[in-house]
Each structure stands twice: as C-alpha cells, then as structure tokens.
C-alpha cells in the first residue's frame, strides 16, 4: 500500500542504501505531500535512521535519487532541517541552551559573520515555543533528557526551514514533554511545514501522525494513517525480516566485492 502524491515536497526514487557493505534499505520509492506530519515506523534495523540520513546526504546510497522541492538536496539546504538522535552528541560540551539554539541560525549568516541581536532574539523565541526560556542560560550538561530534546528541536526551529527531519525526537522523553512537542509539530504542519519523524511506538503513532511510512528493510507502506495502519501491513512491518533479504544481505556482506555499487 504505497500512496503517491502529485507535487510532492519530498520524492525518493528507487533508493538502495548500504551500511558499508551491508544493504539495509532496498529500492525505496515514495513521495510525501506538503503540510503533513509523517511518522516513520519499523522494527530495529529496519532502516529508519538510515533513510533519514541518506536523504540528508549524511550517507551515500547505492542507487536512486532524492529530490526535495523537486531539486537536489544540496541546493535546498536552507529550507530543510535535521534533528539527529540525542545520543549522537556529547552533552558535556561547554555551552548553554541558548548557545545551542543559536547554532540553528549559523546557516544563514555566511562565512565570517557572527550571530548578533537578531539571531539571539530568534533563538529565544524558539526556546519559548518549546517552553525552555527559563533554562536559556543553563549548561546543557545540567539539563534532563527531555529538556535536551527540546533544545534540539528549538535549534531546528531556528533554522526557519520548510521541511523538518527528526530522528527519534521522543526517545527517553517524559510523557508531558512528548505531548507538548507533538502539539507544536501539529501546529507547524497546519501552517504548511512538512515534518518527517522517526518514531518507535505504534500506538502513539496512530494518534500523532496523519501519514505513515512503514519500513522493514524495504518500503512496506506509505500513505495516510487510516489506510496504512492495518493489521496485515503491521505484520509485514514488524513480523520479522524477509529471510531472503537477510540471506542476500549476508551474501553481499561476506563477498569481496559489493555488487550494489559500481
């Protein structure tokens, strides 16, 4: 069940991605419409993070292409924002929450300019949206997991992008923070932004997202939540790896050449 849309903001065409010599995503083909709050679901190792990272250009892919606003990703970087997994950084870094959020403004500044009053005000307003203004000058090492996650999101907001890709923004976050963030994301989608969020929980996914992408090393389904969240498709997603795909993956991993790359 793969629903396509005309005039997509994100188009992924025949994307195959390997981690080193280990194929993790096969031939993903999907389109995402504007103004949707999209959830990316799948079991561990299904390729969810990989998909996001490949889209953002953080990983090479074997074949296929990604188009955002019908252009190359590199040409539209000012319109897209990436929120990595919280554990991907060292939170002992000597900075305050405000410092981190200000980093979201660096992109538009250009090479030698420093962030000034305008950037600071923008950063503070983003902190306001995630209810973190009282913590603006707190060291990030002193923040809780949920607070750190909110700082990451505020930083992303400071980029003033049109599409947001978030990798597990709710991991290790308390339920009230999670609800607050979801409300913020829904507001953003309503105002025309597109958000693609890697998520780990099926039940909340049903409530949060209006579009779901389900992965299991290949694309199981992509479409509006009501049509896609069926028992059959869930089984195909969470019911175990396609064993043939695993076997072929093993074969490729052990071989001395990688047939998926030229």
């Amino acid at each position: 069940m793969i629903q396509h849309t005309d005039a997509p903001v994100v188009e992924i065409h025949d994307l195959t991605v390997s981690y080193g010599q280990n194929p993790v995503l096969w031939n993903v083909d999907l389109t995402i419409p504007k103004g949707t709050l999209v959830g990316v679901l799948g079991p561990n190792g299904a390729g969810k993070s990989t998909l996001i990272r490949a889209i953002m250009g953080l990983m090479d892919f074997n074949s296929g292409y990604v188009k955002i606003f019908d252009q190359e990703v590199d040409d539209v970087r000012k319109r897209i924002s990436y929120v990595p997994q919280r554990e991907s950084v060292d939170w002992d870094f000597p900075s305050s929450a405000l410092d981190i959020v200000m980093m979201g403004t660096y992109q538009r500044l250009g090479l030698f300019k420093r962030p000034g009053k305008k950037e600071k005000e923008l950063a503070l307003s983003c902190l306001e949206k995630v209810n973190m203004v009282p913590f603006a000058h707190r060291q990030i090492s002193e923040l809780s997991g949920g607070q750190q996650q909110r700082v990451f999101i505020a930083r992303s907001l400071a980029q003033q992008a049109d599409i947001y890709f978030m990798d597990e923004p709710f991991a290790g976050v308390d339920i009230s923070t999670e609800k607050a963030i979801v409300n913020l994301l829904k507001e953003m989608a309503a105002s025309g932004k597109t958000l693609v969020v890697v998520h780990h929980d099926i039940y909340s996914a049903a409530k949060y997202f209006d579009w779901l992408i389900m992965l299991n090393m290949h694309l199981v389904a992509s479409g509006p939540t009501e049509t896609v969240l069926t028992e059959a498709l869930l089984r195909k997603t969470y019911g175990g790896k396609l064993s043939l795909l695993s076997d072929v993956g093993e074969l490729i991993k052990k071989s001395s050449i990688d047939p998926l790359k030229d």
Partner: protein
Amino acid sequence: MEDFVYFFSFQDPNVVFVVLGISFLSISAAMVGTFTFLDKKALIGDAISHAVLPGVCLAFTFTGTKNPYWIVVGAFATGALATYAISWVTEHTKLKEDTVIAAVLSVFFGVGIVFMTKLQQTGNAAISGLDHFLFGNAISIVGEDILVYGSLALLTIFTLLIFYKEFKLLIFNRDFAVSVGFPVKSLQFIFNSLMVLAVVTGIQAIGVVLMAGLLITPVAAARFWTDRLGAMLFIAVIFALVSGVAGAYISFVFPNMPTGPWVVVVLSLVAFASFSFSHKKGLITRWYAKRKYQEQIHSDHILKSLYNVLENGGKGISLMELKKDFPGKDAETERSIKRLINKAYLSSNKDFIELADAGLSEARRIIRLHRLWELYLTEYMNIAPDHVHDTAEKMEHILTPEIEAKLEAYLDFPSTDPHQSIIPRDES
C-alpha cells in the same frame, strides 16, 4: 654479506643475547598488544611507555648504575601509576579518555625529562646508557639484561596463556563476565600489570617513544589475515619477531643507528603490505577482485545478448553486431568472447557467434535469476515494475543456487516475470 652470515650464524654470544632479548620482548609485546588492540585501548600502551621514563631515571639516581633489576622496578612503578591514573581520572572526572591519556603521557614524560637532564649533568659515565632508553639500543643488551628482561617476558607470556580464556571473555563480553561473577576487577588489574610489564621489557631495545608501535602494529597487521584470536596472536608474534630481529641486525651493521626506529619501520611496512595484499581485506586484493567481477559481468551480458537473439528467432550474431551492444568496449568484448569460447559457452565460426549448450544453460540461469529477482521485488516488496530492472541487473551476477532455490519456492515456480517475459528453465 659477511655481516649477515656473522650475525645469523649466532657464533657471537653478544649477537645471541641481542636476538634473544629482542625476540622475548617482541613476543610479549605482540601478545599483550593483541588484547589491548581488541579492547580498543591501544593508545594506553603509548602512555605507559612514555610514563616509565621517570621511573627509569629514579632507578638510575638511587643506584648510580644501569642495574636492570632496579630499572625494571622503577619503570614498573611509574608505568603502573600512570595506568592507574588514567583509569581513575577517566572514571571520576568529566575528562574524556583520550585527553587523559595525552595528559598523562606528556606530563609523566616531562617529569622524566627533568630527571634525565639532572642525571646528565652529574657526568656519571653510566648515564650515557640512559639515552638509549629514549629510542632503544638493542646492541647494549648484555647477559644480565637478558636474564631480567627474558624472565619478565616469559612471565608475561605464561600469565597471558594461563588466563587466556578469562581475558578473552573480559574483552569480548565484559557484561556477561560480570553477570556470572567473574572477578573482573582482579582480572583487569592483572591485565594492566601485564601491559606495564610488556612495555618495561621493551624499553631498552626499542625505547620509550616508539614502544607503542610494537604493541599496536603487529596486531593491526595480523587483523587483516584472520578473525580468530588464536591465529591473530600467532601472526602478530611472527610479524613482531621478524621485525625485531631485522631491527637488531640493522643496528648491528650500523652501530650508530638506534634500534627502535628500524624495528618500527620494518613492522609498519609489514603492516602496510598486509593492508594492501591480505587475501580477504587487502586493498589490492579487493581491487583485483573487483576487476575480475567486472569481467564476469561483461561475460554474463554477452551471454544474455545472445539469448535475446535466440528469443527473437535468430541463431547467432556476428562479432560486429555483438560489439554494437557494448559501445566503447570492443577490446573487452573480444577478450570476454575468447574466455567464453574457452569455457565452451560459445562457439564461433568465422566471426559468427552462437551459444553452445553449456552457454545456453548459463544464459538461461542468469536471465532466470534476473526475472525471479524482479518478481520478488514486485511481489514481496511492493516495488513498481518499472523500477525493478536496474537492481535485478546488478543482482543476477551474484545470486547463488541456494538463493535461487529459495526464490523459486517463495514465488511458487512462476512462469513469467513482471513484464510478462517467460522465466527460462532448462528442459529436463
């Protein structure tokens, strides 16, 4: 040449001492180094080897001679102190391990330089030997040294062998070891002591600055030849031995050459050769495998072209026509055709090329794999029929008969592919 014969005939007891000394330390360093490498703690060995300098100098200060017993005690003391400092500081402060290692390394060494400079001012004749501890001088090894260093090395080797299984568990599955009640802390302590011992054994021959090379490089090279711990140890030891003796030999022939650097250079060259040429992971090996693979792809494509001719009712194709299918690759095409003819896949008659029986079978197999994979992608993975060709084109060359059997089973022995082409099978 005479030097070579003289050296390796081992008539000169000095030569024997030197070779024995280097051999012992190489073996113990390579063995200990293998474990530290696998535990991702390779650079701690570097810190330890720099940290022994103050201890060596203190030993000199108190005894006034190059007495190996005291040197070893001094070196062990500061080396162990450094090891302990690194783990304590990493665990109890927010400083990260790499910073702690760099700090301990340079500070201990700096203190050592302070002591060494003072010693050099005393004008004590034995102090000239102290210099050798920086870059190593295998030739200065005499009988008493062998006794001490040799015993240390043997102690290290035996302890490693005795606790082999325990150390293996400690490195590969520490959580499990803790959960089954292994005395992990004691084992770690013993292992850290062995690390210090291995370093101490090598300082006279290799010197403190380059000793890290002897711990890290042999196993880094061995890693490219095997995945198994036992084999890795063995290969690392061989590499270290060969390099050690080579280094000693060079110091023998050129007496002003310090041993340490030469051992490291030889060892590094062995490592680079391993990175390039090892049978599984070597870069050159992989490059070669890639070329062979591309040749195979080309041959497969030729067989497919000929099969298409058959499917369209023809019998064969002229060489010129066939080359048109692969523009710009005329020479390759000719080579591939020759290969295929040798394998009796093709037969040629005055530049008219036909599939032989074996070739027909093989062509069918390749096309079958292609079409089965396309079907698998469309049926099991919901991929649009017009997107499956490219992947299938890549996969058809490597899918094995086992996987082919599974494909057939899952797809229930289908007769056509997503494009309605027939899936060819050999008539039985």
